[in-house]
């Protein structure tokens, strides 16, 4: 050892912490560790059968936990509401478990709660759903109950009024919620009077009669318009036998879907809803796009994910990471059965409304005009393809994937080829679909916030053509979007 070396050791000893503690080793500089060998990913087994009356039944047997989930979809929702009576499908869904021809609402609640089950109903744009969870040893009770509420709802006048009152109060609350208002107004702007754009109001709710509810049920609730998934601790043969027992006698119906009408073409429109006490502005930007069953869906979905989805998300980076303008920014395709749209949504403090809007629009332009970076596409693809095993973790995840394929009339074997189809998408594909389906000059834009604090900025930034509607005057059923004071 040289003298210099000895000195260095001495210095090191002097500088070392007392009490014999060893100085911690410096933290290594290193790249991320390599992955372990990849494991085989298979879509778990399921079985899909069609009963003689046309009802489709999916069984996913999974025996880890002693519970069974029942998911039933009827292929009709708010888009089938009669004109001027928006809310029928929703009210039908709310009333399914509020009394049948043989059980009162209280009896149904007592039964499901006593067996420690859960029962829920709901409606969407083109479907109505019933969901139940029961323990394995209450499986038959659960099947009987689901069949009863779907096939024999009573629609008693007393329960109709109770649910109508609930729905009206809920609307009153929702119309003070900036996020809710922004979303329903956006739908209204994008779809116009197309069935996908109609909004419930106190007026439409008030016009609904018991006959409307019964007619909706009679027209759409038929086995050949229903998908049922039986998921969990029950063997496939037992599941199908039970489905046959409770639904086998249900006669097939004539369930012609509504006459498809094309949604309106995209047009530029900016509407500001004024809520003077808002501290944040809710922003929605988007336009009409494509339905779920479309050859370009996968590529388009990926383009929108690069704009604002998991795995890439330019909006999140630009608005949140780089500038702290928002807590969240995302863009989603909402591809339904007969039409679809895509929407970017974010929210920001009142003062930064226009800056946030401008940056959002800039990203719409960029995704449409410039090719995506290969690395960026790679990340988005890696997320979509790589996360596939995460989407089939629980038996309910598996059932949802199968039910969706059936509901949207997708080829069922596409489930197994998902990762390969994602892998085949190239930057040129992204640019092609972005050019075809994204039109930055024809976007629908909604801002809900304290308008007087940012409308001058809007004009200054070049947005000269916009409506400002006080929130109390917003009326989605009117062509001008304005009604009398206090009419949600």
């Amino acid at each position, binding site marked *: 050892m040289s003298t210099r070396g000895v000195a260095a050791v001495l210095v090191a000893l002097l500088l070392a912490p007392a009490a014999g503690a060893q100085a911690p080793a410096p933290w290594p500089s290193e790249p991320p560790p390599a992955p372990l060998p990849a494991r085989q990913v298979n879509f778990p087994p399921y079985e899909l059968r069609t009963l003689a009356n046309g009802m489709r039944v999916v069984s996913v047997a999974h025996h880890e936990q002693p519970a069974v989930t029942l998911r039933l979809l009827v292929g009709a929702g708010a888009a089938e509401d009669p004109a001027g009576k928006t809310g029928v499908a929703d009210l039908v869904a709310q009333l399914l478990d509020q009394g049948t021809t043989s059980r009162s609402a209280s009896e149904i609640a007592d039964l499901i709660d006593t067996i420690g089950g859960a029962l829920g109903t709901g409606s969407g744009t083109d479907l109505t759903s019933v969901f139940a969870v029961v323990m394995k040893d209450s499986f038959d009770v659960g099947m009987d109950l689901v069949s009863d509420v779907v096939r024999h709802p009573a629609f008693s006048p007393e329960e109709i009024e109770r649910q109508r009152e609930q729905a009206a109060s809920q609307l009153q609350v929702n119309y003070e919620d900036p996020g809710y208002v922004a979303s329903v107004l956006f739908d209204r702007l994008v779809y116009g009077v197309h069935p996908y754009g109609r909004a419930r109001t106190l007026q439409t709710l008030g016009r609904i009669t018991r006959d409307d509810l019964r007619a909706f049920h009679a027209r759409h609730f038929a086995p050949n318009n229903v998908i049922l998934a039986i998921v969990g601790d029950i063997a496939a043969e037992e599941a199908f036998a039970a489905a046959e027992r409770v639904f086998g006698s249900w006669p097939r119906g004539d369930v012609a879907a509504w006459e498809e009408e094309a949604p309106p073409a995209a047009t530029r429109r900016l509407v500001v809803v004024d809520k003077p006490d808002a*501290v944040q502005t809710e922003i929605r930007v988007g336009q009409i796009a494509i339905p779920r069953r479309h050859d370009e869906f996968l590529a388009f979905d990926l383009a929108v994910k690069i704009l604002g989805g998991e795995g890439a998300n330019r909006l999140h980076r630009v608005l949140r990471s780089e500038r702290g303008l928002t807590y969240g920014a995302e863009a989603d395709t909402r591809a339904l059965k007969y039409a679809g749209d895509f929407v970017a949504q974010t929210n920001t403090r009142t003062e930064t409304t226009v800056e946030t809007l401008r940056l959002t629009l800039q990203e719409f332009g960029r995704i449409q005009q410039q090719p995506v970076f290969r690395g960026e596409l790679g990340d988005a693809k890696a997320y979509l393809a790589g996360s596939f095993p995460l989407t089939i973790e629980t038996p309910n995840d598996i059932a949802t994937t199968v039910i969706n394929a059936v509901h949207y009339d997708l080829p069922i074997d596409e489930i197994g080829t998902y990762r390969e189809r994602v892998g085949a998408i190239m930057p040129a594909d992204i640019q092609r679909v972005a050019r075809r389906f994204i039109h930055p000059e024809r976007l629908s834009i909604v801002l809900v916030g304290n308008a007087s604090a940012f409308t001058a900025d809007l004009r200054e930034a070049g947005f000269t053509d916009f409506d400002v509607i006080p929130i109390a005057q917003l009326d989605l059923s009117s062509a001008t979007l304005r009604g009398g004071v206090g009419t949600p």
Partner: protein
Amino acid sequence: MRLTPRRLAARVSACGVICGLAALTLAPTEAAVRPPKLQYETFVLDNGLRVILSEDHSTPIVHVSVWYHVGSKNERPGRTGFAHLFEHMMFKGSHNVEPETHTSIIAGVGGRSNAYTTEDETVFWQTLPAQYLPLALWLEADRMATLRIDEAAFVREREVVKEERRLRVENPPYGRLTEILYDHAFTTHPYRHPTIGSMADLEAASIADVRDFYETFYVPENATVTIVGDFDLEQARALATRYFGRVPKAERPVPRDLPEEPAHEAERRAVVEEPWPLPAIVVAYHVTYDGHPDAYPLHIAAKIMFDGDSARIPRELVYERRLALTAVGSGNITEHPNLFYSIAIVQPGQRPEAVERAMIAEFEKMAAEPVLESELERAKNQFARDYIISRESNQDKALHLAHAAVIHNDITTADGEFDIFTNVSTADVQRVARTYFTPENRVVLHVLPRGPGR
């Protein structure tokens, strides 16, 4: 993220009453069905870090969570919201990881990740394809040991958190309801403050606070790493030891001295005005902490009061008397004594006083008369259901294991609680109702719509 039943209260405060109602009604049967026990192994590294491993080979994925035993109750006065703000700072890069890349690195291999903060803990998690287990452990260890603390990033992130507060709390109707409740219910214990914090305190936080918080609480002996999924036990044990074993041991113990809430001697009442469309009524009672023997009958009482359309409060207030648009509630039983509360939104045309009386009557009834045997059985069946369906995914299982280990300091409660619940009697329920549902313990809050011209 998914939440266990005991977290419903946090969920209510996070997304508003209406959304909380949806969570309650959508919550997915006989107690005779005993769910399978969770299988796990646990060990502690030399630096004090606890590891929990639980294998599940049904899907080729793995979930990794890191629980730091620090939440908003550990914040010092004038720094409310800091635990959560700090959680955001953990995404600002570390020695080997560039700022803002943790999430995209995980997403780039097909994984999902996020984090959340409660009163009692801060949790970082990722679920990813099984072969990337080393990556998840490496990333978490890197930020546990070598977080980058950068002033500009801190100032920007503070704006993001302020937006989060505006989004979740200030802008939506009823967003501030639980904040108002807790402010009136507590005088001393830090549960008085919401986890999101106040704007003024967020603004007052400094980069020195960030360093201090990191050095105090983000240390191995305050961390529990839970790994659930498709892995080889020996390999996972070795990987966890390799990556977390090199994180230096803390130089000082983690402080645990928090002020206690004194016993309340009289009912507390408040009437406030907010620009919300319908009046809201809250009736709350101070109750005990998670793990106390009384906590189990209180959870059963909460089921009898609130769970399902046939439960007492929704049946009486919403269905029979049509006083309320929604009436929900929760036994928010946490590490330190917290509140058992019921919230109702008053139907137009109904009087807030009538709603308050009806709610209090239900609490008093539970203290005055034993619940029916049939109600107890129903509650136990519902409990068994929650127990079973909340252990479906790897993330669910990790949550139960980590909660038992961190909050109860006894991992065996992750399963042992099932038998405790099964043995609760109607006399136990009445006893805890008499103990806690008293006028002195009560907090009553009326939030009335602010008149026009706001």
